[in-house]
C-alpha cells in the first residue's frame, strides 16, 4: 500500500491523501438523470471540506453525533466524512425504519444535527421532534414537496455546503487543524446492532479499528483503486459501511450508488462491479429470479441450461479452486461458459466480479455451490458489528460450503466449554454507547469479545459456525438441533422464502414455512390455479403438496448425515402472511427473531406438536399504510415423510 500510511490514522486524513495523489480517479458514482454522475476524489474532498465548515458554523463540535437517514447517496457519505473531519461521529440509521424506531438513537446520543435524504425521511424526523429536544438542525438533500415547510429546524444541503465553502475560503487553516487533531482512537462511527434480542445497542467503532480491519482484508484480496463496488444495502448496516466507506478510504476504489432500490439489478448490470458483497437472502432472491425466468424460457434454452448446469454442478467449483479436472470436463465447461455461465454472469451483472463475499447469516450449501459453479468467486466471511466485520475470511483456493474460513491476520479465536466463540482483534469496538453494563458483559477484562455464536475450528483451521448459542439446542433425546442449518436447506428451494424450525427439548422437529409469493405464484399460474392473494395461495392444498415435496427432499438429505439424521422435519404448516420487520418478526436486516415468533405464534407451535390436522388463528396484522386489522383463517398442518438414517439403513 502507499508508503507512510502510518500517520494517516483517521478517515479524513486518508481522504485528503487520496485527493492529493489520485485526485482525478473516480471516488463515487451515482446513477441520476439517466447517466452515472461521477465525483473524483478531488471533487469529493472539496465537497467534504465545504460541508465540514458548514457544520462547524452550525455549531457542530468535536464529539457531537450526526444522525443520517438516507439511501446510498454521494452526499450521504460526504456528510459522514464531514462530521468525522470535525471529530464528530456519524450515526447512520435504517432508512426503511418507522419514525418510532429512530427516537431511541437520537435521544440516547443527544443528537443535535441530522442529515435526511428527502421529504419521507424529514417527515419521520419531524414526527419525533417533540420527543427529541436536542435535535436542532435537519439538513435535507432532495427538496421535492417541501416548499411550504416552515420549520426553522430545516435547512437545505446546498445552503449548508455553500455557506461552508465560503467559510472554508475565508479560513482554510481551521479545517486543516481540526482534521490534524483527529486520532486513530477517536470514534469514527456509531452503528446500531440489528437487535435480534433486546433493544438496539449503539456500537462505537474507532478510526483505528475500522482502518486496521479494512486494510487487513484489502491486502488479503489485493484490492486497489481500479476496483469497483456497488453500494445498495442499507448504509446503517456495518457490512455496507465497511464496503462503501472504510475500505474505499483505505484502498481508493470507486463505489457506485444505484438510481433507486427498484433499479438495483439494471444498475448492477451497467456498472459490472469487481468487488461484490451480498447477504444470503439477496443471493436467494437472485437464484429464485433465475429459476423463475428459466422456467419460462423456450424448450431449447431449458435443455441447454439443465445440461450445462449439471456439468457446472460437477466441476465448476473445482475449476474455480484450481483443483485438477478431466480434459473433457474442462472442454465442456469452457463450452458451457460461452453458452450459459458467461451470459448468466453477464445478465446478473457479475461478469467482472473478482471477489464476492457473503456474510451476515449462515448460507445454504447448495445456494453457495450454485454461484461458485457458474464461475463467480463467492467466498464466506464471518464478522459482526462489534468486530468491524472482518474476523474470518475464506482465502482464494480454500473455499468450502460449510465453513467461514481461517482467522484474518491479527485475530485470535478461543471457545468456552459451551462452544461459544470468543474473539480478540484490533478491530474490536470501543464500547456500547452509554451502556457500560452491556459492554462489560460482551467484552471481558482480557479484551475477549463474547460473540454469542456457537461453533468450532475444523481440521483445516477453518471456523465452522453452528448457530446462535442460545438457539443451538438439543432434542429431548439429546441429538444436536441447529434450527438455522435446517432452515437454510429449506430456503434453497425457490418456493420457500423463510422458515422457522422448532425442536428445543422436544422429541421431533416441526417447522413454519413462509412461501415466496412470486415463485409459488408463477408456479400456480403455469398450472392455471386461480388465487386471489397471498393468504389464498398459502392455504391451497396444491401448495401444501409442493412444500411437502421440498420438506421431504430436505429430510432425505438430512438422513445422509448421521449427526443430523433424526432432526428431520416431521410436521409443518404454511404461514398465512409474510414474516415482516414491521411486525417485528424479522430484524431490519431480515434475520428471523426466533424468540418473538415462538411467543407470538405459541398456539401454532402447540397445534404442530399436538397432532391436530389444522389450527384456527386470529392475528393482529399491520398494513403498509400503518392501519392495523385482525385476520382469521384455518391453517392446515401436514405430516412429512421421514427417511431411515443412512447408519440405521446400513445396520438393518
Amino acid at each position: 500500500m502507499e508508503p507512510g500510511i502510518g500517520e494517516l490514522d483517521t478517515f479524513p486524513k486518508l481522504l485528503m491523501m487520496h485527493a492529493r495523489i489520485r485526485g482525478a480517479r473516480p471516488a463515487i458514482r451515482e446513477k441520476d438523470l439517466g447517466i452515472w454522475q461521477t465525483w473524483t476524489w478531488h471533487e469529493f474532498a472539496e465537497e467534504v471540506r465545504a460541508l465540514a465548515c458548514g457544520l462547524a458554523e452550525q455549531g457542530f463540535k468535536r464529539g457531537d453525533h450526526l444522525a443520517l437517514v438516507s439511501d446510498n447517496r454521494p452526499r450521504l457519505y460526504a456528510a459522514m466524512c464531514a462530521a468525522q473531519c470535525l471529530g464528530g461521529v456519524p450515526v447512520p440509521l435504517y432508512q426503511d425504519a418507522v419514525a418510532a424506531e429512530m427516537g431511541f438513537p437520537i435521544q440516547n446520543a443527544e443528537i443535535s444535527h441530522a442529515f435526511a435524504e428527502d421529504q419521507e425521511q424529514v417527515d419521520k424526523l419531524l414526527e419525533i421532534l417533540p420527543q427529541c429536544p436536542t435535535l436542532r438542525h435537519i439538513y435535507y438533500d432532495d427538496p421535492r414537496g417541501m416548499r411550504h415547510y416552515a420549520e426553522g429546524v430545516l435547512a437545505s444541503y446546498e445552503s449548508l455546503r455553500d455557506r461552508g465553502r465560503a467559510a472554508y475560503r475565508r479560513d482554510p487553516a481551521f479545517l486543516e487543524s481540526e482534521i490534524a487533531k483527529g486520532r486513530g482512537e477517536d470514534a469514527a462511527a456509531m452503528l446500531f446492532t440489528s437487535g435480534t434480542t433486546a433493544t438496539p445497542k449503539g456500537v462505537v467503532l474507532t478510526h483505528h479499528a475500522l482502518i486496521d480491519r479494512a486494510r487487513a482484508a484489502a491486502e488479503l484480496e489485493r484490492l486497489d483503486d481500479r476496483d469497483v463496488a456497488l453500494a445498495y444495502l442499507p448504509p446503517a448496516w456495518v457490512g455496507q459501511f465497511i464496503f462503501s466507506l472504510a475500505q474505499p478510504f483505505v484502498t481508493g476504489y470507486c463505489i457506485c450508488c444505484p438510481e433507486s432500490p427498484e433499479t438495483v439489478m439494471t444498475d448492477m448490470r451497467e456498472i459490472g462491479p469487481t468487488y461484490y458483497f451480498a447477504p444470503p437472502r439477496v443471493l436467494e432472491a437472485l437464484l429464485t429470479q433465475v429459476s423463475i425466468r428459466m422456467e419460462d424460457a423456450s424448450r431449447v434454452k431449458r435443455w441447454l441450461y439443465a445440461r450445462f448446469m449439471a456439468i457446472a454442478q460437477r466441476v465448476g467449483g473445482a475449476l474455480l479452486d484450481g483443483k485438477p479436472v478431466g480434459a473433457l470436463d474442462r472442454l465442456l465447461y469452457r463450452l458451457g461458459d460461452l453458452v450459459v455461465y458467461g451470459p448468466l454472469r453477464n445478465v446478473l451483472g457479475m461478469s467482472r466480479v473478482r471477489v464476492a463475499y457473503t456474510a451476515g447469516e449462515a448460507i445454504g450449501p447448495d445456494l453457495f455451490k450454485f454461484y461458485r459453479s457458474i464461475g463467480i468467486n463467492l467466498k464466506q466471511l464471518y464478522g459482526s458489528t462489534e468486530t468491524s466485520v472482518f474476523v474470518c475470511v475464506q482465502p482464494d483456493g480454500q473455499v468450502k460450503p460449510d465453513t467461514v474460513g481461517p482467522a484474518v491476520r491479527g485475530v485470535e479465536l478461543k471457545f468456552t466449554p459451551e462452544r461459544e466463540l470468543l474473539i480478540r482483534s484490533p478491530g474490536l469496538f470501543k464500547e456500547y454507547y452509554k451502556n457500560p453494563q452491556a459492554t462489560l458483559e460482551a467484552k471481558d477484562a482480557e479484551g475477549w469479545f463474547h460473540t454469542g455464536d456457537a461453533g468450532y475450528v475444523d481440521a483445516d483451521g477453518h471456523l465452522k459456525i453452528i448457530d446462535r448459542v442460545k438457539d443451538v439446542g438439543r432434542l429431548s433425546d439429546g441429538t444436536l438441533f441447529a434450527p438455522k442449518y435446517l432452515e437454510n436447506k429449506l430456503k434453497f428451494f425457490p418456493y420457500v422464502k423463510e422458515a422457522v424450525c422448532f425442536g428445543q427439548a422436544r422429541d421431533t422437529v416441526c417447522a413454519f414455512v413462509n412461501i415466496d409469493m412470486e415463485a409459488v405464484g408463477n408456479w400456480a399460474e403455469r398450472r392455471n390455479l386461480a388465487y386471489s392473494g397471498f393468504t389464498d395461495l398459502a392455504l391451497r392444498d396444491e401448495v401444501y403438496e409442493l412444500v411437502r415435496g421440498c420438506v421431504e427432499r430436505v429430510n432425505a438429505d438430512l438422513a445422509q448425515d448421521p449427526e443430523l439424521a433424526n432432526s428431520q422435519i416431521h410436521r409443518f404448516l404454511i404461514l398465512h402472511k409474510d414474516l415482516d420487520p414491521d411486525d417485528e418478526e424479522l430484524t431490519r436486516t431480515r434475520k428471523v427473531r426466533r424468540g418473538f415468533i415462538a411467543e407470538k405464534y405459541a398456539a401454532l407451535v402447540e397445534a404442530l406438536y399436538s397432532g391436530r390436522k389444522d389450527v384456527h388463528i386470529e392475528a393482529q396484522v399491520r398494513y403498509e399504510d400503518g392501519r392495523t386489522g385482525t385476520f382469521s383463517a384455518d391453517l392446515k398442518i401436514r405430516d412429512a415423510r421421514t427417511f431411515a438414517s443412512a447408519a440405521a439403513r446400513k445396520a438393518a
Partner: protein
Amino acid sequence: MTVPQPIAGAQRVGEVVLAVENVSLSFGGVKALVEVSFDVREHEVRAIIGPNGAGKSSMLNVLNGVYHAQKGTIRLRQGAAWREFHDMDSHEAAALGIARTFQNIALFKGMTVLDNIMTGRNLKMRCNFLQQALWAGPAKKEELAHRRAAEEIIDFLEIQHIRKTPVGRLPYGLQKRVELGRALAAEPTLLLLDEPMAGMNLEEKQDMCRFVLDVNDHYGTTIVLIEHDMGVVMDISDRVVVLDYGRRIADGTPDEVRSNQAVIDAYLGVAH
C-alpha cells in the same frame, strides 16, 4: 438550458393572462360553443367543468388552435403587451407558450418515452437539419443540453424506469404521465389539461394531482384544467367555469360554484 427556476415567493395568483371573449363554435348545425367568455389569471389553476358534451374539450381545442371558432376573440398577454387572436393556429399557439394534453392520449406511438418528451422541446432547438446531419459541434451540444432538460422532467414525473420503452407498450396511467411530460418539456407559460385523470384508479389520480400541483407550484405554470371528478376540481382549482350545452352558466370559486343552483340543475339533468 435547464428548466426555469421556480419564481421565488410567487404571489399566489397574478392578473389576467388569458381572456376569452364571447367565442362561438359550431360544426355544421351543431353549436358546440355559444358566446363563451371567461378569463384566466397568472399562476392560477383554472378548472372548466360541465356535463358530457357541454363543450369543454371544444373550448380547449379552440384555445390552442385545433378547432377554429367562427366568432369571438382570444386575448393573450405576452409580457406587457396583449395579443388578439380570432383564429389561433395550433402551431402558433405552441410558439406562444401554450402546451396541452389530450383527452384520449395523442402520443407518438412509434417513439420511446424519452423521444416523445424530447419532441416537446422542438421549438427550443435552433440548429438546422444540416448541422444535425453532420452531428456538428453546436447541434450535438444542443441535443445533449435538451436531453438533460428532458431528464429533469423524467425525474420530476418519476418515470425513470420506462425512459427507453416504446410508448405504445405502456399502461394507460403511465401514458397520461408521459403526455404531461411532453407538454412540460416545452416549458409552457399556459398548460391546458384535457381530463388528465380520466380512467385512472385512485392511486394514479392522487399521483397525477400531486404532479399538477407541483407543476403549478414549482414551475409557476398557469393551468387550465378540464376534469369530471368533483373532488379533484374542488381540491386543486382556484376558480371554476361551468359550461352546459356550450353556454357558460357559472364562474367563480369552487365553493360558489358548488352551491350555484344552475350548476346543480345542469348536472342533475333538469329539463331545458
